[in-house]
């Protein structure tokens, strides 16, 4: 393969595999009989995915990320507004880097 084509071939593979991953979940579910148990599985799993994404980001990060996530969660509980919570989180991270890191 000419070397100028290699990046495009790789990109084609990356895009195709990513697309197949995206359509796989609903495809698998369309072959399964849904029951209350499957519904409970999907419910608990959808919460778990988000928790897993947060936990591994925090485990890879520093105290700064923990402070930021804590600030957004508290702001969310207090004001019940996602934008306020995001501003609280990013400000906490920015301030932490400026003054404490």
């Amino acid at each position: 393969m000419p070397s100028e084509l290699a990046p495009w071939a790789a990109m084609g593979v990356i895009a195709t595999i990513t697309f197949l991953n995206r359509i796989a979940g609903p495809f698998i579910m369309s072959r399964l009989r849904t029951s209350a148990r499957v519904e409970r599985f999907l419910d608990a799993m959808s919460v778990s995915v988000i928790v897993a994404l947060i936990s591994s980001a925090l485990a890879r990060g520093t105290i700064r990320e923990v402070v930021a996530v804590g600030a957004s969660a508290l702001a969310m509980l207090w004001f019940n507004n996602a934008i306020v919570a995001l501003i609280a989180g990013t400000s906490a991270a920015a301030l932490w880097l400026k003054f404490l890191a």
Partner: protein
Amino acid sequence: MVDSQGKIFLTLAMVRIDDSTNQKEMVPVALSVKGALRGMMRLAPISVFVVPFGVGFGIAAIEQGLTVVQAVAMSAVVFSGAAQFASLEFWPEPVGLTSIALVMFAVNARFIITGAALSTWLNQLPILTRWFSLSFLSDPNFVDSRSAFQAGEKDVGVFLGGGLILWLTWVGGTVLGALAGENLGDLKVYGFDVVMVCFFATAITSRLKPLSAVVPAFISAAIAIATLDLLPLGWNIIAASVAGGMWGAYQNAV
């Protein structure tokens, strides 16, 4: 013996009841432009913060030897931060297509899980519309539309629109990063790098109110952290989500 037969009978009865309730609760969904616009509005605030991530990818891609056109094309057709950053490891000589494919499958396998969690709604769409919408599946629009659907939303446009605005800002950010590069400075100073994890935290805060969600959340967090260094990139998320899901599926089963 009698006991186990009784149990089997009960389980069968449960399945029958479940099926009838499922059919009753199966609300027909649609996909409209209006819904897509609503989805775009819902995720407009968060997608502003996707721009710096796109910039980061643009800069990294140029450093790894991609051309500006290749960097932007990759963001446009792949639209996955995790996959794209991971794929840069194969540059500047991306020739091992099989290993690229395997790594991409591993990194994006969580889409199988988030896609499955949206299947109740997405599978009611005709197949091409469903696949088109799923091309824009990402973590933020999964998180947002799954809670919207559970709150009674019937327009899959909310999911698609959320994905579209994230896609626009991701591609736009990549263009900026690929062209302007290092001149843009360090975005960590503004705390932009934590915005995605903060968004997930705000989304989960309200979902954890029912006590039944707390235990799977703890299980998931514990497994995600414990397996972070043991499993290949991204698979700790899968292990944690499946474990949390299994707990949810069987907690009420007596």
